[in-house]
């Protein structure tokens, strides 16, 4: 985590001590075994079913009672198929993009929450890719329901899902420029007058970061 500008407000007139404070989301290290609960079973089953486990899984993180497998992009489809067929994670609950501009060469993350109805278990796959090469293999062939979710993540983050049957924008207009939920895309907004005073748009307000 990088904190700077803790003291001495610049520009904003904010003397609370928080002006200009910049934080970046910390990437937690990997967890050690035992992970606890069914997480060890999931990891064991995956290791047994997938010989390339050590190569494909970059790290395993257990945090706040949730298991996250960080998977290499090249191995994503293989791991997904094993998780679906051998570990019975029948359902993929979409994909959520996250943009970490400070995480150099791993700026874009795609997070897939998986659900096994057979075992009543959850696991999360996370893939990180560089902004300069925003390509990910599509998982639509594994879980058909990811179709719209991948389109949404493409729309909002510019992650290109290779092999997607029709990767077009879904929420924004077709001719929209930019990918709105990236951190380098401004929120925008207009100042609003209220009782004689002007309230600036939210992204220009004095803020406590």
């Amino acid at each position, binding site marked *: 985590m990088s904190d700077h500008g803790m003291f001495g407000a610049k520009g904003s007139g904010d003397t609370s001590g928080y002006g200009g404070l910049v934080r970046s989301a910390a990437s937690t290290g990997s967890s050690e075994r035992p992970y606890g609960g069914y997480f060890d079973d999931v990891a064991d089953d995956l290791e047994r079913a997938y010989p390339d486990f050590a190569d494909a899984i970059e790290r395993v993180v257990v945090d706040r009672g949730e298991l996250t497998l960080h998977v290499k992009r090249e191995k994503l489809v293989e791991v997904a198929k094993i998780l679906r067929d051998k570990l019975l994670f*029948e359902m993929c609950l*979409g994909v*959520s993009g996250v943009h970490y501009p400070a995480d150099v060469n791993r700026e874009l993350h795609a997070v897939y929450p998986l659900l096994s109805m057979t075992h009543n278990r959850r696991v999360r796959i996370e893939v990180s890719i560089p902004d300069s090469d925003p390509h990910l293999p599509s998982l639509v062939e594994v879980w*058909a329901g990811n179709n*719209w979710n991948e389109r949404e993540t493409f729309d909002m983050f510019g992650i290109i899902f290779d092999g997607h049957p029709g990767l077009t924008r879904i929420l924004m207009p077709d001719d929209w420029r930019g990918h709105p939920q990236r951190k380098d895309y401004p929120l925008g907004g207009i100042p609003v007058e209220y009782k004689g005073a002007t309230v600036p748009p939210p992204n220009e307000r004095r803020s406590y970061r």
Partner: protein
Amino acid sequence: MTTFSDPYASSRETTEGTVFSVTGGDWDSLVTEIGATKEERVVVNMGPQHPSTHGVLRLVLELEGETVTELRCGVGYLHTGIEKNAEYRSWTQGVTFVTRMDYLAPLFNETAYCLGVEKLLGITNDVPERASVIRVMMMEFNRISSHMVALGTGALELGALSPMIFCFREREKVLDVFELIAGLRMNLAYVRPGGVAQDLPAGALPKLRETVKELRRDFKDNDKLLIGNTIWMKRTEGIGYLDLAGCTTLGITGPVLRSTGMPWDLRKLQPYSGYENYNFDVVTADTCDVYGRFLIRMNELEQSLRIIEQCIDKLEKLEGAPVMVADKKIAWPAQLALGGDGLGNSLDHIREIMGTSMESLIHHFKLVTEGFRVPAGQVYSAVESPRGEMGVHLVSDGGTKPYRVHFREPSFNNLQATAAMCEGSLIADIIGAVASIDPVMGGVDR
């Protein structure tokens, strides 16, 4: 081909073929002209329009006669950028945004979000029992009001007008309950990280009991109107078929999944907010069709009433217990009161911070302007909304604002099933199939 000067049905040539624009009124010229093309295959644009209260949905249909051969959905007309906006407000302010996504199930949006924030803060077990019970009760009331819209407008769309009148009568009673408790009828922003915004008003419980009694009595009117009704059965039985394999691969949850006989309900299987302490049944059907989903919604009403009754019993025992976590660094704004003009600052609280305690004023100011910090990390939390699994993926960078808020909206995923349900069926059955998914476009587009 002759060019028509009919203002209601003009046509023009494109590379894709002749395009007819029909705006209503006189269809005769259209019929004449289409008859002249000798082509069976027609592409029809249905929408973008507001099919009852589902929001703005556009369907592109490829028809052969009356049979749908291909169907595509166009969504995004109600996109409001709620996820992006939430990144610029404090964690507490986020509630006010997310409650507006799926506007028929605001309490589920709020609860899913707050459970996520609490998980990030590590205070899941510190939420007072009374707060959890109130959350459960409000969610079940909300399930009733949401199902009432699903059933009422679903019937309306198939041409049955009376059920809509009855369903909205019942929904009104539930909205009155919301108004009584939270001061607002929709978009309540009532559930907050750490608990709920305020306790129940004095004398609320007897009133709630009365409402439950009235609802149970009035639900019978709908049962009589629709269950076993020949016309209704003909329009719904065997329509919109989607089996378990289709549901799992498409990520479908909620009543559509339960209509395949799969008793998948997060309230039972992955309980949150103390759902493990209530007696209720998971309603299923095994018909995989519109009628099955309709029956599931009808029967879930009774299960919700059962849970509400148990909540009221619990609340009677928990009279006077806190409804917000004890940690004053998070518990904001627990000092609200219901005034004549709606929910506002409690005058007692204003008197305290302005008149007696400067420390309280500083604390209040810091909490309101800056908010609380949430330790860095990510969580996924899910609740069983009336439409299925409402999941939220929250990422924190350790600051006072969310780094990323993503909602896994059941409507968004479930709407993908439209093509699977409708292709090969008659055009009239699309309406029933879409109604049985019960998509709320505010949630789909966020």
